């Protein structure tokens, strides 16, 4: 899809939300762009018509520490136990490694083998294992363990060649602390038992299992903090 030296630019509409390093455009432009890209001549690349110069506002996509509610954690965790087998590939195998990865990251233990098993592993063009790793990175940051997240991110970066180009993009951003809007929507579910159901519903709409894989990682990352307040 991408030749050497080319850079991937992810363009989304506001219905999908921003992704790190990406660009969000208004719906009519998005529709036009998608049409133009679908008709592109692969040899020449896409011609994009009718774009007007506009103000571009950069967005802050970092996940920062939030108050995590224990009842919300329980609700979200329960939502990640549903299986989603794809032929010989069941993402629950990758989800099962989330807690061990989060714990090892917190304790500064060796994560090399776990990451080798997870990165690029499982169903999907962003393989389930990558979603789990991105989720753990977001969960750790939500729990205030940004140093552990940064350390884990540094271990992830050298392994990016082991997954798909689409996934590399998201995972590289996650390793450096930036996450797509949809990850933020899931992290917001940690705040209270009232906000959890919306996150669970949102997770169910991302890919076949991507949202739930992300959620499994987020819950694992968020759960290991010692400072969970009791639900009111």
């Amino acid at each position, binding site marked *: *899809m991408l030749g050497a030296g080319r850079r991937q630019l992810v363009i989304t*509409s*506001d*219905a999908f*939300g921003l992704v790190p390093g990406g660009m969000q455009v*208004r*719906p*009519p432009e*998005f*529709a036009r762009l998608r049409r133009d890209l*679908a008709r592109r001549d692969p040899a020449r690349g896409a011609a994009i018509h009718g774009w007007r110069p506009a103000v571009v506002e950069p967005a802050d996509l970092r996940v920062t520490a939030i108050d995590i509610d224990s009842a919300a954690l329980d*609700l979200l965790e329960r*939502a990640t136990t549903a299986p*989603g087998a*794809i*032929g*010989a*590939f069941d993402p629950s*195998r990758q989800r099962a490694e989330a807690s061990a990865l989060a714990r090892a990251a917190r304790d500064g233990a060796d994560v090399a083998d776990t990451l*080798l*098993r*997870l*990165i*690029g*592993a*499982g*169903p*999907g*063009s*962003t*393989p389930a*294992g990558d979603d789990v790793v991105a989720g753990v990175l977001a969960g750790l940051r939500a729990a205030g363990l940004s140093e552990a997240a940064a350390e884990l991110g540094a271990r992830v970066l050298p392994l990016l*060649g*082991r*997954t*798909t*180009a*689409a996934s590399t993009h998201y995972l590289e951003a996650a390793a450096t602390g930036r996450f797509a*809007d949809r990850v*933020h*929507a899931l992290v*917001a579910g940690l705040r209270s*038992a*009232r*906000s*959890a*159901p*919306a996150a*669970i*519903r*949102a997770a169910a*709409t991302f*890919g*076949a*299992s*991507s949202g739930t894989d992300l959620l499994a990682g987020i819950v694992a990352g968020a759960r290991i903090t010692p400072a969970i307040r009791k639900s009111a």
Partner: protein
Amino acid sequence: MTSLNSRVFPRLYRDSVALMAIASSTEARDGVDRVGAVMATPANIAILDESAMLPTGLTAAPDDLVIVVRGDTDEIVAEALDAAEAALTSVESARRNEDRPAATIGEGIQAMAAEDSDRPATMAAISIPGTYAAVVAERALRDGLHVFCFSDNVPVEDEIRVKGLARERRLLHMGPDCGTAIIDGVPLGFANVVRRGTVGIVAASGTGAQEVSRLLDLAGAGISQLIGVGGRDLSAEVDGLMTDLALDLLEDDADTGVIAIVSKPPAGPVADRLLARLAAIAQKGTPTIACFLGAEDTDGEVTVRGTLEGGAIAAAAAAGHPLQVDAASGLPTTAPPGRVLGLYTGGTLASEAKLLLKRGGVTDAEVLDLGDDEYTAGKPHPMIDPEARATRIAAAGSDAGVGILLLDLVIGYGASPDPATPVVEAIGAARAAAAADGRELLVIGSVCGTPADPQGLDRQRGLLEGAGVVLTPTNAAAARLAATLHTTGARA
């Protein structure tokens, strides 16, 4: 001896939903044992190897899609791979089809304009995760559309911002978390089929609006518009932003002769301002009713009523169609001992029941709003899926402390196609469990619906009556009956 083969599709991406469908349809073919459809990353190659699914000599890169099939014979495997490849290609051509449904507000506006340029889009109904709802609502408002926003969990800051924008443009933003509206006779969300009439309703409560509007239908009065504003509109933060605009619109509406507001009691300063506004409207000749659940009934320039039933009676009278809510004859005069358990699907109906039980001197009643987030977490609302309540009704039969069950049954658009049947089955189970223990259970309820509702009001009522449910004309009457029987009619 089985056969194993694979096909590599270099640099091919398909979304995981499509891949899952292709893998499972391929796996379902006769003679096919297992199928893998994954990106050929080192980790996935390792998983294939472990599960004896790695054909010898497979070479592929992480950006390549690989489909692996194990089956009884070489021929079966080759055919399965052909079928999978064909399915991948058809996904691709379907994707290019220009006839796919509009995916954004902008595309929707274009599609409707293309269909009939004389009837352009005027309203957007939004029902997406709350985090994104405000962005889409803002887009719709900027394109000149009214908004009906069913989404919940929309941050209050977003609500204030989009409602401010809507006000500026004189457009309705109904919601967020707006369950019910009837605009120009078109029901949105959960709504009953209510006859057209002269009462304009502004509602910050969904089932409250349904109960009031269906009672107006019963009275023969009917409604002009039912504008939902979302449960937080009359909070101190949102400050009635949309209620104000809705009142402007109803004041200007030639078909509206009476205005009623249905809500929980608003925040103090909001209530003062709103009552002053309603009084000013009344002085200009349009009777106004403030139906604030739990408020004390007062008659002045504005008629204030503390129950949905009271609000409906006042509005019907003002519209010239008095509502007779006679006590049904043949009501029981005694009840089994035990507390009152209310199992509700409608939130405002539950609140009204709680209020009237308390006013009736019942101190140990338990009334649950099963549509609350606490009970729904990820499951459909009980008005859509009656099963969760049915389970609780059945379980109540084994609770020796329960004597009276109090229920609502909401029909109309949006509600389950046959909510009475699971309730009836569950009541049967509950009664059997109670009888096995030498006890009885009295079930009292009301049906929030109109004769024109698709479920059939008479049919739903008939099912409940057949199961021995004591039906009253209003939810308030059901709660009052439960209170009376509990406090004075309990058998030893």
